[in-house]
């Protein structure tokens, strides 16, 4: 097929679609006029609906489904991005925006710092830092996130009760949002649980730029029998607020990872923080009785 034939075909198609060269130009200029004609832009009242408010368990967007009701019932069991329809080969606008909002929340959770005011004034925790100077170092040098700065060592020696039965502290880990969302319910619930078992607890504090492994140094430094860190989990697209507790019996630097017991998925749509706190207190009690943790401890 030569070029001339091709041109003829295109002209024919355009003619059939009723778009002559002239008409197309008119349309374009009309659009331009509309865009520039108005004097001042009009600000409407109201809000665009918040895409993050949508409960994706109940959102089912497939048009003309064969078994829509059943699919929607299945969806109610888990917050998965299924049954969200398509626009041609692409996502629909709503699920696309939700996905990007979730992704942004995850990024924010990692890159934002925990609010110092919240930690110090509301939670009453003093703050120490690892050997990471800033977030970039923290994210690129995991090894430094496992070591306390010399100032931190001095502060802990000065302010903390020595050789407590249990040492609890909070760390930002990979989600500042998790700390903000859960600690106010989780920490007092653990404390009260331990109190109900009459177990002695050390002075709680907050470690900035802390990874799980820093608990080993803290355990050695303070001589705690059980050390428990409440740490923000790496965020996912379902929640950026999930927290974990890592707990170890007589943790030492260089011990195998298998000696840590973990309770994960603590957030308002997972295990609620208050109830998780009560559960963690019981795990600590069992750990003290059995003198073991991690894979050595059968719960």
């Amino acid at each position: 097929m030569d070029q001339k034939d091709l041109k003829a075909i295109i002209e024919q198609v355009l003619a059939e679609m009723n778009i002559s060269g002239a008409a197309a130009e008119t349309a374009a200029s009309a659009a331009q006029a509309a865009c520039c004609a108005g004097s001042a832009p009009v600000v409407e009242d109201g809000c665009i609906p918040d895409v993050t408010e949508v409960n994706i368990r109940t959102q089912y967007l497939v048009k003309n489904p064969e078994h829509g009701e059943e699919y929607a019932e299945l969806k109610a069991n888990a917050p998965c991005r299924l049954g969200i329809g398509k626009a041609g080969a692409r996502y629909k606008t709503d699920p696309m925006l939700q996905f990007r909002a979730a992704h942004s929340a995850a990024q924010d959770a990692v890159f934002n710092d925990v609010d110092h005011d919240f930690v110090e004034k509301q939670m009453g925790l003093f703050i120490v830092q690892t050997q990471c100077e800033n977030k970039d170092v923290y994210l690129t040098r995991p090894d430094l996130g496992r070591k306390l700065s010399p100032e931190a060592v001095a502060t802990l020696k000065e302010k903390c009760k020595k050789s407590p039965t249990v040492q609890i502290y909070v760390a930002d880990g990979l989600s500042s949002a998790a700390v903000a969302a859960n600690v106010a319910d989780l920490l007092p619930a653990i404390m009260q649980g331990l109190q109900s078992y009459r177990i002695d607890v050390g002075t709680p504090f907050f470690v900035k730029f802390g990874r799980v492994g820093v608990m080993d140094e803290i355990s050695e430094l303070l001589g705690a029998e059980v050390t428990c860190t409440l740490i923000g989990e790496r965020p996912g697209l379902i929640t950026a607020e999930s927290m974990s507790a890592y707990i170890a019996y007589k943790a030492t630097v260089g011990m195998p990872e298998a000696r840590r017991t973990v309770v994960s998925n603590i957030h308002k749509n997972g295990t609620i923080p208050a109830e998780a706190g009560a559960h963690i207190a019981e795990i600590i009690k069992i750990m003290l009785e059995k003198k073991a943790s991690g894979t050595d401890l059968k719960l």
Partner: protein
Amino acid sequence: MQEIVKSVGIDIGTSTTQLVFSRLVVENLAGSYAVPRVSIVQKEVVYRSNIYFTPLLSATEIDAEAVKKIVWEEYKAAGMTPHDLKTGAVIITGETARKQNANQVLEALSDLAGDFVVATAGPDLESVLSARGAGADRISEEERKTVANIDVGGGTSNIALYQKGILKGVSCLDIGGRLIQVKNGKISYIFSKIQALAKKHGIDIQVGQQADIPTLTRVCEFMADQLAQALFLKPQDAEHRGLYTNDGTSIPSEPPVQGVTFSGGVADYIYNPTTEDVFRYGDIGVLLGRAIRSHPAFGQIELYQAAETIRATVVGAGTHTTEVSGSTITYAADRLPIKNVPILKVSEEDEAVLETLSASIINQMPLYRPEGRTEQIAIAFTGRGRTSFADIQMLAEAVIKGAKEAIESPFPLVLVIENDIGKVLGNAIRVKLEHKKDVICIDGIRTLSGDYIDIGEPLANGHVVPVVIKTLIFNS
């Protein structure tokens, strides 16, 4: 990690007495890094007893000794001792529950039935147990349909309606296979309501008359018609209302029934109608089965095969009465098991505000002081919407304020909550009471006012306790 719990179900019905032993498999389904989630993952009947006619001393009295002998023989045949059993239920069902000495029978059986096994009755519960034994709940869930089970027994027909696996309603009618009995070719017994129903339709039947098959077939057709009305397959007539047991009510008219299963002794003759030797059991059961099967209204909806027919109730009692609590709870292990504890339920309206929650407990307490002394009670509420640590502290204070009398009694403080806050609330109360009181605070359990609860010894490494909720109220 699995744990096996052995369970017994004993059903002393209007016409038959039977028992089953079953095994319930309890397992923690959560990963090792998550908060435990213990469930009953498998239920299996391992032994089915023979089916005995319920021994009666007279029309109003059960022969307790004979029942005990039957149960004991079956224990021996199954190689089971009361010690092996962790849970289960004895239920006295249908007309038999109205016998004078029902409670004595339960007492006579209690040492035989293991440390945890208990007594229950009431047609609402019977409707649910027979439907679950028949598998109507499972069929409705799997087929995504609205399915009713009708357990047509000797004295009553128990109906339970399930929509997509969820119970929508129960009812109980005085329609059953032994409501007219036949001896030596003559009618030997007629239940008054059935005699009246026949009379309304111009059929006069009397004790001592010749048992005429065409006449009794017509009576059975009217009985079958009442069952069709009970499912709203046709309009309810003037007689219908009066046929409910103990002035009960019908199931809800919505959602409409799409399918039906039948259980109970008559069910076998609904699924396999016969015209031979119709009075073989000395009653109208075979005729009633055929009348139900040939009734046009039941032809309009799907007929599903029941998983159990005559044994549905006992299988339901043996396998479906026990549930497990939530997996994060508070208890004082040396105070368990506890049995037959009445539920003091705070209504959802009252629990919305902490002041009315306290007041509701205080106001209801006198009901649980039958002889002027405080009994062991269990305080129940949903706990909905109270999830933050601060909310739970306030809730704990309100419960302590309301339950002062129970706290001062020698019994442990028992709380039964729906939402997953049992452990943190239990801790809060224990600390606030300065460890001076044993606190049992379980969650994941739904109760109604008037229920009774049994809480067994902990299972699955102490994460959960087995629970039996007993609904004793007739037509609540």
